[in-house]
């Protein structure tokens, strides 16, 4: 009994300063803060970050290679993609006249991008999509091409590798 009490007293004077020392180390310059000052300091997105679906521009065509097949529109569980093909063109050269995604209901599932036969629907590397009304959530063809940037040839490679 007496021995344990003595031990307790000694332990108190050892363990309490120990605890203070641990927090002091964090407090000092030894451990800088991990906070990101968001609007000034943008987070580095992971390499395979999947954002909203967009239509990157193919540099050779000067537009998106989308053939307006509508597969993405049919696949989308939320039915938020509207594709209208351009009328009266050569069936070998189909392109969308209208392509709208109402991003407000998109759940970032990626099914539309997976099903696209031309692999032209790509996730954007952006996340700052806040806007003041619901109309701002509806992205049209030109918005999707602008947000998508350029289509990287890497997409073709993955397609060919899939064929092998």
């Amino acid at each position, binding site marked *: 009994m007496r021995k344990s009490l003595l031990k307790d007293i000694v332990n108190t004077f050892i363990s*309490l300063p120990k*605890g*203070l020392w*641990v*927090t*002091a180390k*964090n*407090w000092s310059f030894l*451990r*800088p*803060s*991990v*906070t990101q*000052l968001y609007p000034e300091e943008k987070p580095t997105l992971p390499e395979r970050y999947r954002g909203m679906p967009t239509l990157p521009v193919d540099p050779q065509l000067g537009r998106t290679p989308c053939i307006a097949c509508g597969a993405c529109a049919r696949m989308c569980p939320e039915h938020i993609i509207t594709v209208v093909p351009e009328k009266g063109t050569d069936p070998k050269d189909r392109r969308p006249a209208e392509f709208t995604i109402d991003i407000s209901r998109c759940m970032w599932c990626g099914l539309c991008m997976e099903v696209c036969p031309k692999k032209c629907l790509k996730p954007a590397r952006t996340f700052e999509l806040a806007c003041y009304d619901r109309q701002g959530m509806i992205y049209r063809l030109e918005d999707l091409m602008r947000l998508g940037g350029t289509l990287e040839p890497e997409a073709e490679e993955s397609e060919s590798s899939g064929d092998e």
Partner: protein
Amino acid sequence: MQIDTQQITALAVEIVKILAAAVVILVFILLVVLYVVLKLRWVIARIQSRLGPNRTGPWGVLQTVADAIKLFQKEDIIPQGADRWLFTIAPAIVFIPAYVVYVVIPFGKGLTVRPLDVGVVYVTAISSISIIGIITAGWASNNKWSLLGAFRAASQLIAFEVPVILAMCIPVLLSGSLNLDVIVQKQTGGIANWNLFNAFPMCQVACLMLLVAGLAEANTTPFDLMEAESELVAGFNTEYSGMKFALFFLAEFAETFTLSALLVTLFLGGYNPPLHILGGQLTGYWYSLVSLVWFLFKCWLVVVFILWIRSTFPRVRIDQLMNLSWKALIPVGLANLLITGAYVGLWLAR
């Protein structure tokens, strides 16, 4: 009866002086609390590898001002079934003692509002009134959590009032006065004369005791059982909101500063500079100013230390808390008092 105009003017001047002192102290408490809360958030943030408030105003210094404004805008709710009258005056009963304690604290040479001869007794007597406010708040809220918090507050403050007084007795015995100004004056002449660095080892024990028991009195984190949010929602102030909650908050942080001011006054040389060259040769108003700066600087150090403790240690259990007081602090304090009494009576008096 002849009315003496001179007496009346003297009385009027006295009343104006008292009112001015009251306003100055109130403003001082508000500023101190705003700063201590901000500093607490900064310290905790840094210890948790965060940055803390840094958006409101330059470096986030206006954060607590914004918090206070938010608090004043909140709806003032009095719950159904609460005792309206007691519920309303309880925050005042808690805040007023925390406020009037500042009357005897020597902020600098000649900067005590009232250098009472019973200063130490006054401090302990007044600061234990606030417990009545806490019990009132818990009782009047008509809420079991509040009441449990109040019970805990009662047992905790009774248990820790004793070690606080026992610890305060040591510097009182050594300097032979209950007047805080006299205790400070006894510690003039550099760091070696401060009670904390006294060669007599009971001083350090008493200082540690006052720190531990004072933390429990001011209910800061390792001992904040009366508002243990994991068990009691928010303890005695669960039902409070708006201005009334702000008063509790203000009182709590004012008490934290009072504790550090007492530690500085009783053990760290009060407003005396640590070396004679650092302001000791000045006289008059200049010395008052320099000693005020020294006092505030020392208080700042102690407050930062308290915040460090606060953000490091987890909350103790209620039985551990009671054991700490009744089984450790009070016996040690009594022995301490006896030894110091013998030392003063038999050794120093020779």
